[in-house]
């Protein structure tokens, strides 16, 4: 079954598994990559992505078309990421304390020299993880998924001007983090 996102979600709300599979095909990769880049753990990202679509299915009958289906799905994904980040917060603080000195002095093997592809990805994910939560989400939604400011505002419950301000700070901060480690 094909059709608009709204047609699909209406059908899913009536228990149409074919429509649900079609909806998953459209957004599963975007959601997976948003979640992965957000929390930095591949295996947890896969689990969370499944949870995103499970919750999408269960809430589908209550979807109100005041916004796009896509932003609604990303909002579910964002909320699940927040829950996961809170759960990992304690470990992350410990890791950040250990890594803060490394970032400032840039003693990591990647700094000042050529990095492998994997190291480069890890470095960017590490830099992203240092951003405050809503800044990270806004940047991933804009640069990674191409959502408009209005759509990002719906996901993060912010005004358009709030999103603009958030993205400005996110890019400024990430640029500084990356520059410290010699990439910028």
């Amino acid at each position, binding site marked *: 079954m094909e059709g608009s996102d709204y047609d699909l979600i209406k059908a*899913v*709300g*009536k*228990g149409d*598994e074919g429509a*649900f*599979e079609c909806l*998953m*095909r459209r957004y*599963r*990769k975007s959601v*997976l*990559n948003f979640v*992965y*880049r957000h929390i930095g753990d*591949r295996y947890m*990202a*896969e689990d969370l*992505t*499944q949870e995103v*679509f*499970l919750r999408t*299915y*269960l*809430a*589908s*009958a*209550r979807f109100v078309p005041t916004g796009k289906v896509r932003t609604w799905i990303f909002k579910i994904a964002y909320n699940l990421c927040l829950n996961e980040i809170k759960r990992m917060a304690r470990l992350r603080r410990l890791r950040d304390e250990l890594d803060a000195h490394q970032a400032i002095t840039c003693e990591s093997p990647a700094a000042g020299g050529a990095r492998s*592809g994997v190291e*480069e*990805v890890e470095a*960017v*994910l590490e*830099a*992203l993880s240092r951003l405050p939560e809503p800044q990270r989400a806004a*940047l*991933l939604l*804009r*640069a*990674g998924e191409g959502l*408009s*400011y209005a759509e990002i505002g719906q996901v993060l419950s912010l005004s*358009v001007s709030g999103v*603009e301000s958030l*993205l*400005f700070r996110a*890019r400024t901060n*990430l*640029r500084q983090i*990356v520059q410290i480690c010699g*990439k*910028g």
Partner: protein
Amino acid sequence: MQCEQARERISAYMDGELDGPTLHQVGDHIEVCASCRALLDGFRKVDDLIRGLHGLDVKDDFARQVLEKVRESDRPPGLMCPGKGALSRVLSFLEPLWELFEAKRAPNTGILEEFDDFPPLSVGFIYFKFWSQVGRG
């Protein structure tokens, strides 16, 4: 446009989120301001870093796994609460208790007909029974 004003809008300028007049004002300023051009360039590199992150591939059995979880949840779409089976069991348990406490209606006591069907021991029943007796003296 002042440099400070332009800097604050550079992110939106890059994303094409500015209205026409503001877009032109920021664009004109960037042309003559090396600092703002450097900032814009830095923001573009940040976005390139994000876009350059390799994407994960979805496993082939992703849809099957999600559908299995959906079926295991035993909930129809829109029902974020215990399944029908559990709910009906709870209601079945409560039903005899409800019948135990529900009193039968009293016979006609001669009160005003329109209030004759108050359930016994309800506030309305007590009120009108009292006043009807007061009225009889």
